[in-house]
């Protein structure tokens, strides 16, 4: 069978290359039609471009003056915060469009970021009946920890909280969640490792309803967003919850703030699969800024709901766009 597959792949690749080539050609033609630069014989000592400086604190001074250098500095500042080249360029353009000598570029940038990310939102939980919060994300992003902190917070607000251990895959995931449930004073429903996550959720909904819980938080196994069967499994969890008599009110995507541009792909895939309603940005206690959420908000409209700022049980806060923007500006 290999030989067939091999030929098919190569043929497919060549075909696709050709499809792409037409766009390449168009671009080439466009460039060809552009006015020509005077071409002199190439020299080795061609003047080097201005070295791109490491800015940071200099940004402010530069910004007060405006000019290309300032915009480049601003752009680089955003890049270092993982905003990504496209979103950074768009942001700089927005600031630039509003900038004048009297204006303070720093405030403009803050405003633009807040504009993109805001308004600050809250978790939506039903006034009556059981609210279900489904927590998803790639491996190690901080789902379980977030659930522990969130459960504690909600319990602190006077709600009765149940937790479902639907990560039946990772070693000791159940034990980890158990510890957090105790810390939060929440009731936990789990099964042995390898059990069907859907069946855990079914049981958990039933038991949460029976106990009259206000909220059920569902922990799921970490999964890379490229793995279709695993993404399907998440959809199934949602269906099972409905079948058991409750619907998912919030689907939170836990995103590690140290993640770069892949965060966009993650957000896209999880949103497509389970309709993410909000993001939890974790590990903001480090040096990472999590700027990719700007691009995510712009492209997908998904708001950030909460931020994680440590491993302690109280290290969780509602997301505040202004604070987030200030952190980026502070570099």
């Amino acid at each position: 069978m290999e030989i067939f597959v091999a030929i098919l792949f190569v043929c497919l690749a060549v075909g696709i290359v050709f499809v792409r080539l037409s766009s390449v050609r168009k671009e080439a033609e466009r460039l060809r039609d552009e006015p020509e630069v005077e071409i002199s014989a190439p020299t080795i000592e061609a003047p080097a471009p201005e070295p791109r400086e490491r800015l940071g604190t200099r940004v402010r001074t530069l910004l007060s003056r405006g000019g290309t250098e300032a915009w480049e500095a601003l752009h680089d500042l955003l890049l270092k915060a993982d905003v990504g080249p496209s979103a950074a360029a768009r942001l700089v353009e927005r600031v630039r469009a509003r900038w004048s000598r009297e204006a303070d570029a720093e405030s403009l940038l803050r405003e633009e970021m807040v504009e993109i990310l805001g308004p600050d939102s809250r978790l939506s939980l039903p006034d009556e009946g059981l609210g279900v919060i489904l927590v998803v994300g790639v491996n190690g992003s901080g789902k379980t920890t977030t659930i522990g902190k969130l459960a504690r917070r909600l319990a602190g607000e006077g709600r009765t909280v149940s937790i479902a251990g639907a990560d039946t895959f990772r070693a000791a995931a159940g034990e980890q969640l158990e510890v957090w449930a105790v810390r939060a004073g929440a009731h936990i429903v789990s099964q042995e490792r390898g059990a069907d996550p859907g069946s855990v959720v079914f049981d958990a909904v039933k038991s949460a309803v029976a106990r009259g819980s206000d909220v059920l938080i569902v922990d799921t196994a970490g999964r890379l967003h490229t793995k279709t069967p695993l993404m399907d499994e998440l959809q199934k969890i949602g269906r099972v919850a409905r079948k058991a008599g409750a619907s998912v009110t919030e689907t939170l995507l836990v995103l590690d703030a140290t993640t770069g541009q892949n965060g966009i792909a993650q957000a896209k895939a999880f949103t497509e699969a389970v309709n993410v309603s909000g993001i939890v940005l974790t590990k903001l206690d480090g040096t990472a800024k999590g700027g990719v959420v700007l691009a995510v908000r712009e492209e997908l409209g998904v708001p950030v709901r909460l931020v994680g700022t440590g491993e302690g049980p109280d290290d969780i806060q509602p997301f505040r766009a202004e604070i987030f923007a200030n952190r980026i500006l502070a570099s």
Partner: protein
Amino acid sequence: MFDTLTAKLDGTFKKLRSRGKLHPKQVDNALDDMRTALLEADVALEVADAFLGRVRTRALSEEVMKSLTPAQQVIKVVRDELQATLGGEHVRFVVPSARRAVVMMAGVQGSGKTTACAKLAFRLKKDGRRPVLVAADLERPAAVEQLFTLGREIGVPVVSEGRDPVKVAKAALKEADRKGYDVVIVDTAGRLHVDEEMMRQARRIRDVVKPDHVLMACDAMTGQDAVIQARAFLAEVETTGFILTKLDGDARGGAALSITAVTGKPVFFAGVGEKPADLEEFHPDRMAGRILGMGDVLSLIDKATDTLDADEAKASAEKMLQGAFTLEDFLGQLRQMRQLGPIQDLLKMLPGMPGGKSAFKDLADQVDENKLRQAEALILSMTPDERRNPGIISGSRRLRIARGAGSTTSDVNTLLKDFEGARKMMRTMMGGGKGFPGMFTMPPKAARGPKR
């Protein structure tokens, strides 16, 4: 990225080709596009700029400028530099075998340390070593249980005696010596580089276990923070190399370039899945292609444009995407592809599967030229009707076909079965024309900002 980067480069370079020489300004334009591409792949800003500086110097060298194909030369320079920065050749992970060796795992939270420890132990065990795992992450709830469970699964002992990670590590060494384990793998708690106390603790563990290797687990999805983390861990625990984890996703993995560039330490392994066996040796050349998102497709393009008819190639690719191709199409393709070169070589030019896995290389190794010839002969001995509609091939026809190709009916049966299998496989893989994930899917094509 392939879209924008290659399109841009090709556009820029087409112009040059007609003239045969390169203007520095054009090189700079190309490098600007390259910068965007690298940043989209999460290469750290400072690393990208330093890298492009080196490319520029080499691209403007006389040798490149005067060559007949400066454009290709520049692309080659980029790839070479990328691979060189990533460490050049694959660096083998060697642990001393004459005595008890120690490997310490470190890294930030959630980077995949515990899983990496188990994978490494599994690998060493397969190599005939007697590894022992040490659970010294006493911070995260159930981290110890996690390692014990993994150890049980792979049949490697796990120890964790004491309530202080330094003491746990110390006790583990004694235990290893007593029981004759020859590689001690110490899992440590995840820690952020800004947490001074935790970093000091890591230092103390290091001082006690005197590791032969300190591996830092780095998530392939990490963004600009990778350089800060890598530098901090190098300074505090003297990292000897990296494990790049979660490479089975679709992250471009620019972090690999960032961390190797700023530390000068190699990436030894890539984690490509959640199972103990999902650990691969890291190959800088493959990673270079992945970061650029183009494999050797560039050379494939050159070959293809020179030899093939574009419309035909496009049409058959489309057919294939719909799973509607026949043995006749296959024959046509086979012959066309042959014009491009040995199939094995072509396969090796394709960009990696998601996960940087060498799937095509493996595939290439399985393709046997003799089998290919036999298949060709069998198909040739069918009538055009039979090729288009294999369903009509009855027993007697099989015999005729086999005779015509000088083989047996069981060969005919295998061929038909294999073809149907391949067709089915392609159909499921393409998922109804969505395209083959990872091969040509590009990062989201956001509107490009204005040029600065």
